[in-house]
């Protein structure tokens, strides 16, 4: 809502409050002032009204005019003007020599193409008025003032240059403040001055409108009130300049006096009005009814609209004249030729208007007020006000009698307000007297008996429905700033993170401590991204990506099944910006759905995934460099497993989009929980990346998996014995399998087995590799003897030979 501060003074006297004070006052009341705009951004001096006595073409310039201008002084001023719309006989805005225009532009006597010019005829833009506040006919040139404007007078007042417009960001409940009177009501609560309604002096002729029109409404709930007034002999033309200025300040384009007056009253009262050219109605009746399916109306904008039975039309009994509350029809539009007007002031159901607005896309100042709800007690008054203005500014004769259909409920709602209950809700100690005084300021009548108030809610306040609404009304006028600061008096219990929340934070901290940086990426991805780099536990799950019904782009159409495709894009983004060494991770949800026709919420599974590329170690001057590789990422995951005291098993796996020989599926207790490895070099190339490694883990599983209870184990008192075994096996044999065999056979004395050397090449067959392991023997009860260790070691050697077809070296 755009509120002209000067216009507002018509309805409430706010004294000499400054713009800042008014902004603060309205904001404090909940009418948040979001912007302040001065009509003239800067002040100009010495600007007066001039009369163009003579105007002829400049002898030396085609596009310049040479004018003699009377500015109310002894001598006329000779002024050269470049505006196309300058003409003899106009009243114009003149900057006299000595005047100062915005930007400190001083007007002096100058010579233009050899002829003296003593001043400047101004456009509004030259007076620093934004184009949106300039009437359309003057945007391209100078302002032409009404003929009766007094020569030599100041233009500030006339052109509303000293006005300020407040842009109020209204919350959706405050439909009552979508008009000047509504804003005035709120202002009046804080300035101790009553709201002034416009004085309506409506002189009606002897002739009755009833002889001209009959009104009927087919469905009373959709249009409980319809009033038609007939105004004869109107002269259609421009509206007065002050009205145009006020409309411009309110963000409305002036059209002609009839349309401008309906808009003016709309802004004043919040009541939409419509004027029909009576002679073009084509009958003597107005019938308000639902549209028939497929019924067509040509609206004011010249477009044909096909309506249906969800919408309501104003008709002449046969053909539609207007879409109720939305837009009039082209066939009954008021034009310069119009002589007789039918003025409609009606109350339409908000939902039926909304449906028509959504259907046609025609959202206007009028329809949005119907949609949000209007005051049933203002419909007729607004009609009368407009009729009075039409008679004053369009020479109209208003016929007696308003022809109405009237089933409108105008009763006020009642709300019971108990002082103690109010105070216990707010934490305040507001007295009965204070409550009474606040209600009076609000304009709410009431009856009081001790602590109990029965409050009548004015029909303009459609948002005040229940006790809590009343609490807000009292609090807002009392002042939110006067509510004390307390903390709840209830018993409190200690807050804490749940075990899973704590563990999640620890896992994230671990990844950060080893060098990965957290990212947050979009959950909505492209179709292709739902098919890329899926973990085997997801790709084997028959999941169907979830699409949006109305996506904004193909890039953000589906809910993700993996963080990795977007993490890879983030790597590319960074690498392209010369950040070659990047290690990122993300923790978040993926969305698992199995329904082709979706009915239930998808399962949201927490995953934690990472993507790494470039150097891991890059100590430049020491010349130590190490690229990220498979075993680095594996080490990170093993470290995480150790940190969580769980065991993650790595199995060689072939996974789509991954290097066929450098990927592993990950398992806990036999459950598939993710994967890791190097992304396929062709995918890396496509993404402009060098060797890139990823991991993707089911975080939900990690947070839930049973972990051994922490119990202290005694530190061994007896020394351990280290034995090495080096074996030669076929290349296809996995070290992990051999390790498992050693561990199994070596029980209970072998506590730990580690591969410490892997070798292929010279001295071995092409299909062979050599692996060496450390075996740590220990007995917690005593010092081991060589004989005991030898016996166990022999068993290990035998097992490795038979199980893995290994040759044992040394």
């Amino acid at each position, binding site marked *: 809502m755009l509120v002209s501060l000067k216009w507002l003074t018509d309805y409430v006297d706010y004294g000499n409050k400054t713009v800042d004070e008014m902004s603060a006052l309205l904001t404090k009341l909940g009418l948040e002032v979001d912007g302040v705009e001065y009509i003239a951004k800067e002040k100009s001096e010495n600007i007066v009204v001039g009369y163009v006595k003579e105007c002829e073409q400049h002898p030396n310039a085609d596009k310049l005019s040479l004018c003699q201008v009377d500015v109310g002084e002894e001598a006329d001023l000779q002024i050269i003007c470049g505006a196309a719309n300058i003409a003899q006989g106009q009243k114009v805005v003149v900057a006299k020599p000595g005047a100062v225009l915005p930007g400190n532009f001083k007007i002096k006597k100058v010579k233009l193409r050899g002829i003296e010019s003593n001043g400047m005829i101004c456009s509004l833009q030259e007076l620093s008025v934004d184009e949106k506040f300039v009437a359309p006919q003057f945007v391209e040139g100078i302002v032409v003032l009404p003929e009766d404007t007094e020569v030599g007078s100041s233009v500030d007042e006339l052109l509303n240059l000293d006005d300020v417009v407040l842009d109020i960001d209204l919350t959706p409940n405050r439909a009552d403040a979508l008009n000047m009177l509504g804003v005035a009501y709120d202002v009046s609560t804080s300035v101790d001055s009553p709201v002034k309604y416009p004085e309506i002096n409506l002189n009606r002729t002897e002739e009755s409108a009833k002889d001209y029109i009959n009104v009927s409404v087919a469905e009373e709930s959709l249009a409980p009130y319809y009033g038609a007034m007939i105004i004869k002999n109107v002269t259609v033309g421009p509206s007065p300049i002050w009205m145009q200025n006020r409309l411009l300040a309110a963000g409305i384009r002036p059209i002609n006096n009839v349309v401008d007056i309906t808009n003016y009253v709309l802004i004043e009262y919040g009541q939409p009005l419509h004027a029909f050219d009576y002679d073009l109605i084509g009958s003597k009746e107005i019938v308000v009814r639902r549209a028939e399916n497929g019924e067509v109306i040509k609206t004011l904008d010249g477009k044909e609209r096909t309506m249906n039975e969800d919408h309501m039309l104003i008709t002449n009994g046969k053909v539609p004249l207007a879409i109720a509350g939305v837009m009039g029809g082209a066939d009954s539009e008021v034009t310069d030729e119009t002589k007789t007007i039918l003025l409609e002031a009606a109350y339409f159901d908000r939902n039926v208007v909304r449906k028509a607005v959504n259907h046609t896309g025609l959202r206007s100042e009028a329809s949005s007020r119907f949609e949000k709800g209007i005051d049933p007690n203002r419909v007729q008054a607004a009609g009368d006000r407009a009729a009075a203005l039409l008679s004053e500014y369009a020479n109209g004769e208003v016929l007696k009698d308003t022809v109405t259909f009237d089933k409108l409920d105008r009763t006020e709602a009642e709300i019971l307000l108990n002082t103690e209950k109010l105070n216990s*809700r707010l*934490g305040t100690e507001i007295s009965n007297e204070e409550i009474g005084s606040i209600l009076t300021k609000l304009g709410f009548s009431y009856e009081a008996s001790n602590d109990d108030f029965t409050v009548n809610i004015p029909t303009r306040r459609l948002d005040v429905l229940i006790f809590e609404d009343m609490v807000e009304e009292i609090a807002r006028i009392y002042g939110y700033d006067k509510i004390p600061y307390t903390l709840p008096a209830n018993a409190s219990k200690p807050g804490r993170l749940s075990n899973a929340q704590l563990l999640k934070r620890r896992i994230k901290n671990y990844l*950060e401590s080893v060098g990965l*940086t957290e990212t947050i990426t979009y959950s909505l991805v492209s179709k292709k991204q739902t098919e890329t780099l899926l973990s085997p536990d997801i790709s084997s799950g028959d999941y169907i990506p979830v699409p949006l019904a109305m996506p904004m782009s193909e890039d953000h159409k589906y809910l993700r099944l993996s963080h990795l495709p977007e993490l890879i894009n983030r790597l590319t983004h960074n690498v392209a910006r010369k950040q070659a060494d990047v290690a990122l991770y993300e923790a978040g949800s993926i969305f698992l759905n199995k329904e082709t026709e979706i009915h239930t919420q998808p399962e949201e599974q927490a995953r934690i995934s990472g993507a790494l590329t470039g150097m891991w170690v890059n100590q430049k001057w020491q010349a130590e460099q190490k690229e990220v590789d498979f075993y680095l990422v594996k080490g990170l995951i093993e470290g995480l497993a150790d940190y969580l005291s769980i065991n993650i098993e790595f199995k060689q796996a072939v996974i789509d989009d991954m290097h066929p020989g450098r990927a592993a599926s990950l398992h806990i207790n036999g459950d598939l929980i993710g994967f890791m490895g190097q992304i396929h070099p062709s995918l890396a190339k496509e993404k402009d990346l060098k060797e890139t490694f990823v991991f993707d883990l089911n975080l939900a599983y990690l947070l839930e998996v049973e972990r051994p209870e922490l119990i202290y184990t005694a530190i061994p008192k007896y020394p351990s014995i280290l034995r090495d075994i080096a074996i030669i096996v076929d290349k296809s044999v996995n070290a992990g399998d051999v390790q498992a065999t050693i561990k199994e056979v070596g029980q209970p004395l072998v506590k730990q087995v580690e591969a410490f050397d892997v070798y292929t090449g010279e001295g071995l067959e092409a299909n062979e590799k050599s692996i060496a392991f450390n075996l740590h023997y220990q007995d917690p009860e005593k010092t081991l003897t060589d004989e005991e260790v030898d016996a166990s070691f022999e068993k290990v050697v035998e097992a490795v030979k038979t199980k893995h077809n290994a040759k044992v070296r040394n």
Partner: protein
Amino acid sequence: MQEQLKQLKNEAIEKINVTDSLDQLQEIQVEYIGRKGSITTVLRGMGKLSAEERPIVGQLANEVREAIQNELSTKKEHLEKIELDKKLAEETIDVTLPGRKVTVGHPHILTSVIEEIEDLFIGLGYEIKEGPEVETDYYNFEALNLPKGHPAREMQDSFYITNELLLRTHTSPVQARTMRALDNEPIRMICPGKVYRRDSDDATHSHQFTQIEGLYVDKNVRMSDLKGTLDVFAKKMFGEDREIRLRPSFFPFTEPSAEMDISCKTCGGKGCSVCKHSGWIEILGSGMIHPRVLEMAGYDPEVYSGFAFGMGPDRIAMLKYGIDDIRRFYANDVRFLKQFDEA
């Protein structure tokens, strides 16, 4: 013989004094006090001495030996120190060269802000609740007093999947879910999470962003409690010198409703471009839970009351660190992410 011993002593000390080599020192030791050294040689003649003289000469010999040994030790220590100093001087490095870099990652700035808020409210006795990002229309709107047909829930503003399912537009559904899951028990919870709106991405809009919702339900909860709680929060989060202001606002699920502003840090409340010349910066929306919302969740609004508040960590981070474009959070440029190590 006594003279001989004294002379040997003087001779040895003289040699010790002039040498500057540990090797020579070793030679001097052997020459004078070694098993075959000069003093031993002299003492071989002891047999010729009288019984009275022998102890005197013996004692003198010991004294001489000891004196030489002392001189040797002192000198040795001295020379060793010189040698060590020399060695250490040679080992001097350039301490200004960069250290071996330890790479440490960082939490995302939004995570840091969210965890800071979480920890703050945990300190006030709140728990953290989570809820689904794909919500039912019921929990996202209806249970929050936004019935079907309500203007604030236009299809084109939300990412719908079906008529009944959508990406949650706020974290408020977790309120409704939490209340419904409990049976008239007091609630103190906050709920952080991702939310989605059908907005085109630009400097101030993102189709995905984060929110934190807070909820307090109990008997006799007052609006002053909301104000006090938000004041504690604002001062801890933004600084003890910040003022808060509540002003009337509207949310379908609270009544009365309030927007909370904090005094502008940049200008100290005088008005500047950061606060749009108002002296205040909007931080969060809040209010007393609407009785309809309590009722729908099975709480008797005559017995229970409560407050709720919701804020955007994206906006808070932007304000706190002067970030100019919301898209930076989701572009994940490491040059951006790494700026907030200590956040």
